[in-house]
């Protein structure tokens, strides 16, 4: 019938319009990444796209630039240590808040999540002033501390959600079978918290590695981490070196995300609702 066909045509049109919209928007999201790659292989110094040729010279410069090399070492060191510490104390905090519920636990929960809403510059300046007053200026441990603060809310939240999904009867079953509280924790609770802890590790690594605002205030040329080094370079020079660095980082991040997805699954990591 005529009406049926026109309905179907309109439905198809609507569908293609919807898909087209989403594809265009996603293009907007993805194109910058492509452009970065394009500029990074530009033989010349101009930040032009499309590139005039193909050259890996900027990659060479990026990998051999001493300030970047130092910054990468600093970043890896700071991120590794702050992640280990943040995950440990964050997991302990989540267990305390969900299973033990000490008095005032609601207030503490808010406090633990508070670094999320404090602007990085405020945190950075405050820590800088505190460091100056206590003689910690220029110490890499100051950076570690700041990174722990920004990573903590993510760790606590991830582990907390995992804990909420943990059947408390399992811990009782372990007790009924003869496992004391410590053994029950290590043989039952901890293994089942793995998804939450892994998510916490992932978030902690990403947040710490990319931490910029606070780190800018509390680091100096010796201790500065990679984002800060890149920022300073961009302000002073306009060649595609940073495009090369960026591309390398994007590739590394993509690999990390894919590996994490393979091991635990991104939906689980983000604790997104499953298929409906």
């Amino acid at each position, binding site marked *: 019938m005529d009406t049926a066909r026109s309905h179907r045509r309109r*439905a198809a049109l609507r569908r293609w319009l919807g898909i087209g*919209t*989403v594809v265009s928007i*996603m293009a*907007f*999201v*993805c*194109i*910058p990444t492509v*452009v*970065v790659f394009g500029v990074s292989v530009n033989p010349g110094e*101009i*930040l*032009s*796209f499309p590139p005039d040729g193909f050259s890996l010279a900027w990659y060479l410069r990026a990998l051999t630039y001493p300030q970047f090399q130092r910054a990468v070492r600093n970043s890896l060191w700071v991120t590794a240590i702050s992640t280990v510490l943040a995950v*440990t*104390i964050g997991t*302990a*905090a989540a267990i*305390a*808040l969900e299973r033990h519920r*000490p008095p005032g*636990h609601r207030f503490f929960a808010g406090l*633990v999540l508070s*670094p999320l809403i*404090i602007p*990085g*510059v*405020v945190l950075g*300046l*405050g820590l800088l*002033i*505190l460091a100056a*007053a206590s003689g910690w200026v220029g110490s890499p441990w100051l950076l570690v*501390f700041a990174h*722990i603060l920004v990573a903590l809310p993510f760790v*606590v939240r991830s582990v907390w959600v995992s804990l909420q999904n943990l059947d408390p009867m399992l811990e009782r079953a372990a007790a009924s079978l003869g496992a004391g509280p410590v053994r029950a924790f290590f043989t039952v609770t901890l293994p089942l918290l793995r998804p939450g802890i892994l998510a916490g590790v992932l978030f902690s690594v990403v947040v710490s590695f990319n931490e*910029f*605002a606070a780190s*800018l205030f509390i680091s100096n040329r010796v201790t500065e981490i990679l*984002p800060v080094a*890149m*920022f300073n370079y*961009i302000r002073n020079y306009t060649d595609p070196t*940073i*495009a090369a660095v*960026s591309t390398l*980082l*994007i590739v590394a*991040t*993509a690999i990390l*995300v894919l590996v994490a*997805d393979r091991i635990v699954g*991104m*939906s689980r990591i*983000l604790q*997104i*609702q499953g*298929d*409906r």
Partner: protein
Amino acid sequence: MAGMVLLAPSLLALAVMLAALGFLFQFAFRAFIPGSILVGGWTLENFSRVLRPLYLSYLLDTALISLYTTVLTVLLSYPVAYALARARSRAARSALLVLTLLPFFTGAVIRAYSWILMLGNEGFLNGVLVRLGIIPSPYQFLFTQKGVIIGLVHFSMPVMILILAAALSHVDPNYERSAQSLGAGPVRTFWTVTLPLSMPGIVSGGLVIFAWTCSAFPTPALVGGGRVKMIANVVEDLALEAFNWPGGAAFAMVSLAATFVLIYALQRFAPRLAGGHREVA
């Protein structure tokens, strides 16, 4: 109690953070001694400097930029979030999820930098526009407020998409089906059912993005190139360029206060938009 022992290290870290904020607070009231990081006695001079029109204009700029960013982010994120929440094929959903999240994991500096490349006179956007003949010669996007807003929208989209997708996935598809069974076409269903039901998510996501954008740093710094200043850039100027820690502290506090007031006001106004009380995500 075991709970307190487990909680102690975190609380200790947060106590130090509060101490740092306390020092910041205290510094706002101390006199600035130019050329040194030492401070003089108690004074309100920093605040009187900071409440002058120049600095107040920075606050206004920040609020406006955040507002434009939030609105544009909502508009662009909604279709993607809708597709994500309603997608039936796992492959499509996975693909959207990964593409949405990848920028999120690559860090603010890289993303701000990518917009320098996109918006520059020899960059992507100008290249496309000139080649398509839409404009005769490169348009100045970089170092303008427009450019900063575009960069900030791009920065905020992943978070907004996730928040909206979560909110939309909680809207029972049966509502849409019953609207259709009652005679509403797809467009009417969207306007009268889907959109209102997803309003709480839009509002709470919008508030999150607005608050977050107010404290944006690398994007206005790099894409704005020193000509567009938001709150964080001013604080950096005062504290790290002029070593005026008290001034930076005072401005940071005024901005924080202004931001909280604005967000509080928006939150009050929000339930009327959302049609109900909602917590900020």
